[in-house]
């Protein structure tokens, strides 16, 4: 199934089967993170280019760690120190990287569609680590893994997404992914960030103005960061946002008692989410981070390593050997 997947550009183009396969393949890598010796030789001799044209800490470290634990080497390009500052085009930059013969490239870029642009022009697999306001597919997959773990299954949940949804690539990837698994979405945030067109992203989407109504009956609550760097229009006063849209302990009571709270990070405590909720028992925030490693290892293993779908799983082999 995954053999036919050459790049990971977004969730939109994936099938349910492909998503399930990736999550299943992530599972042993999840276990693997608890192992005292976190190093496999699976991608030994392979090189992964990490091309982060937009500042990123967690996603870059997560990909770098995933590659390292698979035994791959990494080449790092960071926006702040790159030749982009000298006016080099994206195409020239990635062609230069490709000339150093990496076996795959992970790209983060502020322009929506940049990974597709690169994939159409390079021969190596391209993994999208977040492009503009378009998609953040590995975030969608790690969220799905977290949901499946905590809730026992992926299908049919009431999913409430809170915040600046218009500018959120995380929201888009999650809506594409969970929409394929029958989720019912409730979107809530300042109205200019929750336009009607978002209803076209998945089969079952409603928009509500009040957070209390949005949380009523929710199984999953996704809190988005307020993306000040992507907001061109006058920003909302922080006080107004906190008063109207912050996920507080009191408001969380309106959701199902076993509702799972997710946040893609970095969180701004006291703005979009209250500390008590972020650190509370319903929060899956730190599991999301760990699961991110597992999902990215699975993707690198298959896309960069080119492993056939039915190959014995490297993390399982390893655990067996260790026993």
């Amino acid at each position, binding site marked *: 199934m995954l053999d036919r997947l050459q790049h990971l550009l977004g969730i939109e183009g994936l099938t349910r089967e492909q998503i399930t396969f990736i999550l299943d393949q992530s599972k042993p890598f999840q276990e693997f993170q608890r192992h005292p010796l976190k190093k496999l030789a699976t991608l030994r001799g392979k090189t992964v280019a990490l091309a982060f044209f937009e500042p990123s800490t967690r996603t870059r470290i997560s990909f770098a760690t995933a590659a390292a634990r698979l035994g791959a080497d990494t080449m790092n390009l960071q926006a702040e120190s790159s030749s982009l500052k000298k006016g080099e*085009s994206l195409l020239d930059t990635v062609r230069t990287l490709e000339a150093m013969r990496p076996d795959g490239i992970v790209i983060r*870029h502020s322009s*929506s*569609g940049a990974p597709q642009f690169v994939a159409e022009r390079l021969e190596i697999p391209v993994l999208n680590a977040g492009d503009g*306001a378009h998609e953040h597919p590995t975030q969608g997959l790690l969220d799905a893994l977290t949901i499946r773990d905590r809730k026992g299954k992926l299908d049919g949940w009431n999913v409430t997404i809170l915040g600046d949804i218009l500018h959120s690539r995380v929201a888009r990837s999650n809506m594409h992914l969970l929409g394929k698994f029958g989720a019912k979405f409730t979107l809530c945030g300042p109205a200019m960030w929750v336009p009607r*067109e978002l209803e*076209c992203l998945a089969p079952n989407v409603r928009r509500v103005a009040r957070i209390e109504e949005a949380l009523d009956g929710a199984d999953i609550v996704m809190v988005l960061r307020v993306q000040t760097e992507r907001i*061109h229009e006058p920003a909302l006063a922080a006080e107004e946002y906190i008063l109207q849209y912050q996920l507080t302990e009191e408001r969380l009571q309106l959701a199902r008692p076993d509702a799972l709270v997710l946040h893609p990070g970095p969180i701004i405590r006291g703005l979009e989410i209250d500390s008590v909720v972020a650190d509370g028992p319903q929060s899956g925030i730190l599991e999301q981070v760990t699961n991110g490693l597992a999902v990215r290892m699975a993707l690198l293993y298959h896309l960069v390593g080119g492993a056939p779908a039915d190959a014995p799983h490297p993390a399982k082999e390893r655990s067996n050997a260790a026993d």
Partner: protein
Amino acid sequence: MLLIKNGRVVDPAGRTDAALDVLLDGERIAQVSANVSAPGAEIFDAKGLVVAPGFIDLHCHLREPGQELSETIETGTRAAARGGFTAVCCMPNTQPVNDSASVTRGIVERAAAGSVRVWPIGAASLGSKGEALAEIASMKDAGIVAVSDDGKPIATARLMRQVMDYCRALDLPVIDHCEDPTLIAGGVMREGPTSVKLGLKGIPAQSETICAGRDVELAALTGARFHIAHMSTLGSLEYVRFAKRAGMRVTCEVTPHHFTLTDEDVHYNTNYKMNPPLASRADREALIQGLADGSVDAIATDHAPHHPASKDVEFDRAPFGVMGFETALGLGLSELVRPGKISLMRLVELFTTGPARVLGLERKIEAGEPADLTIFSTEHEWTYRAAESPSKSRNTPFDGRAFRGAAMATIVGGRVVYRRQAAASAS
């Protein structure tokens, strides 16, 4: 002398659609009638072809002076000739901006060596900066046919009023690129479900419509001739209809890409990025309706060449604009005539008498008129290859598209400036 025999003359000026021969003598048409004989004249056999008045493109960018990497008057007019255009109006957003008689004269001089007639459009404001009036009367003396700050809207209602007042007295049409810049705010495609899905910043249709409404009101105030460039929304069209009903001298043009494509076609391909952006399906349908019912006066290409490297970038960083000369007629035939939306006569009108009227000119196939003719086939099958274009640029969404119908010969001032090799035809 050149005798065009056996053709089907389609001339909207007299609603003529008949088998007629056309004799050209020097730069003028000498005779139009059935079975002309002219011993010694060179014969052009137009059997199976339509003989139309010369096509006029109200809106293009020839990039000269100043942006010759993308296009020159020489390369642009060769592409225009291949598309069947005998006259093209070039927008003033060159470097320097065509805002003075000296720049206009330079363009006119360079155009003398071009394949087709070049009718410059002058800037409305100095440097198209939206502050002070350009040297409009002097530019008119030097040869401009209209004024526009195309690429940007005329910034304020106050300046637009002054431009319209001034141009009314000079009997020059004022062309506006209608757009409210505060609503565009960094947008790169039409706002709608597709822009939201792609995560690209949207431009609402109202950014055009608001400005069109303002301008129609100012045209009412001043009595000026006002023309909406590359109109892309139903809302703007309704303002044009309102103005026409009121007897105002308000006209508009629609581009082939706007009546062919929609925002759903974008897919991050920068060859689908232009301003105004590709519209919604509903707007596209409305534009076609306007082309059919007479509300729209002209098809104009907005040929906007950009050097290939400048378009080979991330979508939101690419410049706006696509080429258009060579595909306009083919798209008109395939998108409008063949599906039965408009007649062949109406299509010819939109390329000839329609744009001529916008400029206050006549266009007809009659003895004594300039010998500008477009001879085209409705059946000739060919595939557009951007790589073979005489243009210096390649930014077209129609590369590789198969067409049925093409300009077979373009005649300017009695001279055949382009002739398509019929050998390529699938007979």
